């Protein structure tokens, strides 16, 4: 890569109390796929927002194609040929595909012409998309296509992709990579942000690794092992969870033909979900977001009631019972959204501990909460799970993602559940906290509890599950032993096969 497209020199950006980027310098070559690696909070997002004109650096300079580059707003970045696909898609659910694309363009053509150009580009890059569909009805993969096509219509010189594969099935990832390689051949540079190391090794030529806002290393990912890169990111040696094998015991939880409509708009109904979970077993449930994971968790936790026989705990029908009744029987749950669902953000850790542990830890008597015992329980969780916080009197919102997640998972585990259901236990959590959460789930199973882990992180599921099942459009596949499953088999279970024929046609 002889020619340099974008050059960053000494970029620094500080927020009150934290330096997000400190003296960051690196070059992106023309036609290069450049990886930006780092843990959550390493400063990746701030850096790309700076390049896209959403954040102004405190000091430092950028050069784009030989000329000074100081965007003060995204429209200037777009005018200079910089486009960005966001991690949490910047799409509007109630509008259709063409409207969404028009909103991201500086001078959109009339609607009829735009629709035709969307069709042309989507065919050229093997990304099938219908311009008149409402975005709220699209799958995550299709939504990402909307974002990508929005960028491609503006002939970008540099395409920034922030964690693009976190919501895709393995097959959808293949389609995306095919598109990105095609773009590289056409001379487009790509700045690719991810923490999935194997992907970066398959796609990128250069990787810049950030830790705590600073560039700590630059390497060629094709010649560096994933483990080496991970250790550069974390700055220490990684601990791999291990487990003591225990023979599975009797069935504790059974779902029998669980069908229920979603309580939310744009949600997914559960269709005839059946499964059995045994004592001492970890069942992993994979699937792309929005395929019924949230609804399954609601049905298990008791937030959504079903017919009594649909959920059976130790042979007892509980489908109609509310959460506290299920907790009393030993079925506990930790939902995905830690700020707002698993915890009340503005309440203290003591109060949050009392909210779910009241029944099993007997934190109340005659309707009055014992704050002394609640505080004791919160302190126990903080100590056992190494939650970094000044004390149980702090508000849940003041904790970092990883620490709060350790707290909400630990709060359930220390109640000694017989069945524990967790959704996305390590989403947005740094690698060391993720490892300790996974270890805690395995330890719980080794003590004889049944654990259901719902996650979109397939590596995580393969690491800790005994059996694996996938949710696709509200339907659960039959669980299979996790050992020996290939990525391709998993992909087919996830239902990633849709749209494959278009991509294949494009290969030919």
């Amino acid at each position: 890569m002889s020619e340099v497209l974008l050059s960053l020199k000494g970029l620094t950006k500080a927020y009150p109390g934290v330096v997000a980027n400190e003296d960051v310098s690196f070059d992106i070559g023309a036609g290069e796929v450049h990886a930006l690696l780092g843990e959550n909070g390493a400063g990746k997002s701030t850096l790309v927002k700076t390049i896209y004109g959403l954040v102004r650096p405190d000091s430092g300079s950028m050069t784009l194609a030989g000329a000074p580059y100081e965007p003060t707003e995204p429209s200037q970045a777009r005018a200079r040929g910089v486009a960005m696909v966001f991690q949490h898609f910047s799409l509007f659910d109630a509008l259709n595909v063409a409207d969404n694309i028009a909103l991201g363009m500086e001078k959109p053509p009339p609607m009829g012409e735009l629709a035709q150009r969307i069709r042309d580009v989507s065919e050229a890059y093997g990304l099938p998309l219908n311009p008149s569909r409402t975005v709220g009805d699209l799958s995550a993969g299709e939504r990402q296509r909307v974002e990508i096509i929005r960028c491609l219509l503006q002939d970008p010189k540099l395409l920034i992709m922030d964690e693009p594969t976190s919501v895709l099935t393995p097959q959808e990832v293949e389609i995306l990579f095919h598109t990105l390689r095609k773009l590289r051949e056409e001379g487009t540079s790509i700045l690719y942000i991810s923490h999935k190391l194997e992907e970066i090794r398959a796609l990128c030529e250069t990787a810049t690794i950030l830790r705590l806002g600073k560039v700590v290393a630059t390497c060629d990912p094709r010649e560096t092992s994933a483990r080496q890169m991970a250790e550069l990111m974390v700055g220490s040696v990684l601990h791999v969870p291990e487990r003591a094998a225990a023979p599975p015991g009797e069935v504790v939880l059974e779902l029998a033909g669980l069908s229920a409509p979603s309580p939310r708009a744009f949600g997914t109904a559960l269709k005839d979900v059946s499964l059995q979970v045994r004592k001492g077993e970890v069942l992993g449930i994979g699937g792309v977001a929005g395929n019924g994971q949230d609804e399954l968790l609601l049905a298990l936790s008791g937030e959504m009631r079903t017919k009594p026989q649909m959920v059976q705990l130790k042979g007892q029908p509980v489908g109609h019972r509310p959460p506290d009744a299920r907790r009393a029987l030993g079925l506990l749950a930790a939902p995905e959204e830690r700020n707002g669902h698993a915890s009340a953000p503005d309440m203290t850790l003591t109060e949050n501990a009392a909210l779910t542990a009241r029944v099993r830890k007997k934190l109340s008597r005659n309707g009055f909460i014992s704050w002394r015992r609640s505080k004791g329980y919160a302190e126990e969780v903080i100590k056992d799970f190494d939650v970094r916080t000044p004390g149980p009197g702090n508000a849940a919102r003041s904790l970092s993602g990883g620490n709060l997640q350790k707290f909400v998972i630990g709060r359930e585990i220390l109640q000694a559940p017989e069945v524990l259901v967790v959704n996305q236990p390590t989403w947005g959590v740094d690698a060391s906290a993720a490892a300790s959460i996974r270890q805690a789930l395995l330890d719980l199973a080794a003590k004889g509890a049944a654990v259901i882990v719902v996650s979109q992180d397939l590596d995580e599921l393969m690491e800790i599950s005994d059996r694996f099942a996938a949710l696709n459009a509200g339907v659960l596949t039959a669980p299979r032993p996790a050992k020996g499953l290939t990525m391709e088999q998993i992909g087919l279970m996830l239902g990633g096969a849709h749209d494959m024929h278009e991509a294949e046609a494009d290969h030919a």
Partner: protein
Amino acid sequence: MGDINPILLLASLMVASTPILFAALGELIVERAGVLNLGVEGMMITGAVVGFAAGVGFGSATMGFIAAALAGAALSLIFGVLTQYLLSNQVATGLALTLFGLGLASLIGQSYVGIRAPATVRLDIPLLSDLPVLGRILFRHDFLVYLGLGMVAAVWYFLNRTRAGLILKAVGENHEAAHALGYKVVRIRLAAIAFGGAMAGLGGAYLSIIRVPQWTEGLTAGAGWIALAIVVFASWRPIRLLVGAYLFGGITVLQLNLQAAGARVPVEILSMSPYLVTIIVLVILSAGRGGAALGAPGSLGRSFHASR
């Protein structure tokens, strides 16, 4: 009940609906931009009194309407600064705005009680107004009735056919995404809030200058609240909003006529009928289409701060 003249009834329906139509159209734009301004009643009554005072002062109804629109917009910008820059709670601020507007209006209006409003230009459209039945119903009104209808069409066109309308909807749908794309969320919302205030002010002035036409305290009598309800039950769509406003106006006129004709129904029931019927009909209209089709803007009522 032979005393009720259907032609007069239909003609006064259009007049009775116009204040609510204005206020509701303004609020529709505000809510489509993702802001919930519950101060419609306060802005209406402020518009009513300022418009009346200016109309009397200048001796011109047109000047009254202009002043009313400006007063409504000014009041709404207080709400705008509080909620958009100081990030105060929109519900509480809107309610406060209503209370403030009611108080302010009775203060300003003290010296105007019992005065007659200046005359308004009537648009007796030649030829058309001479048509036998339709002429009386449709073509012999003041220009604001036609302005209201024109605004419905303009708002529909703005929302569905223009890029500015698309951006407004985008800001209301997902303000974080709109910000990420580089749109000025706060500025767009302030413009929408000011438009909503001006429209509410016009609606109020229509009551005090044309409909009543004089200033009395509590003149709006809840019309602002009905406008708010109509926006929701019309699923944030201008054409349905017109249906809702005309329905409410129609039943108001009808029940007044029934009272005058001495119908054997308790007055209380007649008085509550416009509110009941409008809400029932609009609930039926918007039911059975599923939550998504209801179309509440995704960011409605949420504060936006560009911190992330």
